[in-house]
């Protein structure tokens, strides 16, 4: 069944290349729009409600730093810091069960933060939806490209949705699948062009979104457990020997 279809060169000129160019341009546009929107957000006077959330964030960062650098401070100071964090009554990391639920509910009912999340989500979803609709409307019903590797028959319905012949090789795909291929493949290109990995990576963003709700209670208790586990071994006495070794290497 591996007959070689001869495809019109006009398809190359008017389908593949414009679609790729449009997607690249939309990605660049989205990057700049998100940059502009971020610079418009003035610091919110409602810091009180967000303040609790940010405070938890900072506490987590401090606890993490303490865990990482535990061996560089004296045993006594490490222990006192650890008690400060994981003390049963008023330690910063200790969150009683009832309060944990409260925090989550507070997070989701906060209209400001919800709107923020919605805005970020929308700026991602709308261009994708629009482009997909555009592709479906204009570029359906013909073979657009041939993918260089063979696939099984099960992919036929997914990749060849506009083409109603069932004997055509599955490698010949419609423009919808070219759209999806571009969607995933251009992420790497965007990270090269636009500097750093940014809003074009939707899967990372979605993980971040779902992470917000559980951020306070679970990660606090996780940090507390981690801190409790740490075995302190003071490394400073050995540093003199190390300095001596390094200097010897330099001098000799």
């Amino acid at each position, binding site marked *: 069944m591996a007959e070689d*279809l*001869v*495809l019109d*060169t006009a398809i*190359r000129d008017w389908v*593949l290349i414009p679609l*790729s160019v449009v997607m690249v341009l939309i990605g660049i546009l989205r990057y700049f729009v998100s940059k502009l929107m971020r610079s418009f957000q003035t610091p919110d006077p409602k810091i009180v409600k967000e303040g609790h959330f940010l405070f938890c964030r900072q506490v987590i960062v401090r606890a993490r730093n303490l865990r990482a650098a535990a*061996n560089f401070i004296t045993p006594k100071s490490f222990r006192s810091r650890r008690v400060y964090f994981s003390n049963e009554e008023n330690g910063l990391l200790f969150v009683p069960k009832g309060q944990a639920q409260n925090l989550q509910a507070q997070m989701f009912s906060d209209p400001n933060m919800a709107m923020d999340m919605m805005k970020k989500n929308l700026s991602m979803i709308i261009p994708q939806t629009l482009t997909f609709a555009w592709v479906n409307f204009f570029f359906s019903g013909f073979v657009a*490209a*041939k*993918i*260089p*590797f*063979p696939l099984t028959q099960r992919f036929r319905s997914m990749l060849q949705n506009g083409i109603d012949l069932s004997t055509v090789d599955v490698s010949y795909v419609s423009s919808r699948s*070219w759209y999806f*291929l*571009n969607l*995933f*493949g*251009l*992420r*790497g*290109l965007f*990270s*090269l062009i636009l500097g*750093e*990995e940014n809003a074009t990576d939707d899967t990372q963003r979605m993980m971040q979104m779902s992470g917000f709700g559980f951020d306070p209670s679970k990660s606090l208790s996780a940090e507390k457990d981690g801190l409790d586990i740490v075995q302190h071994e003071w*490394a400073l006495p*050995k540093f003199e020997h*190390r300095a001596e070794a390094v200097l010897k290497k330099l001098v000799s």
Partner: protein
Amino acid sequence: MAGHSDSSSSEKKSSEAMNDVLVFSAENMQNNTKVIYYSRTFMSIIGGVIAGILGFTGFMGFVFYFLVMAITSIGLIAKAKFSVHSYFDSWNRIILDGFMGGLMSFVLFWTFAYDIVHIF
């Protein structure tokens, strides 16, 4: 070329070779990881275009992708002067990081070049 000159000027030492305690400078590690990611993405795009022009199909194309990734890994290791532990925290990072993302870009550019050259 831009990718390679980037990596040549910006891989920084992220840990000091100590006997017992390992200290990592997080910022440098992040920078090194970014360098690996850029190098891999760049190489997979170029590899995709080459595979398409040469007309690789099916399995050969994926073998070529692994070959390109291996060359990238070897290049990165050679750049780190073979002392991987002073630049990264584990072997896995320099070998496997960015593999999947690179695969998608490779397939896209492979399809693109293959179509333009062979079915044009």
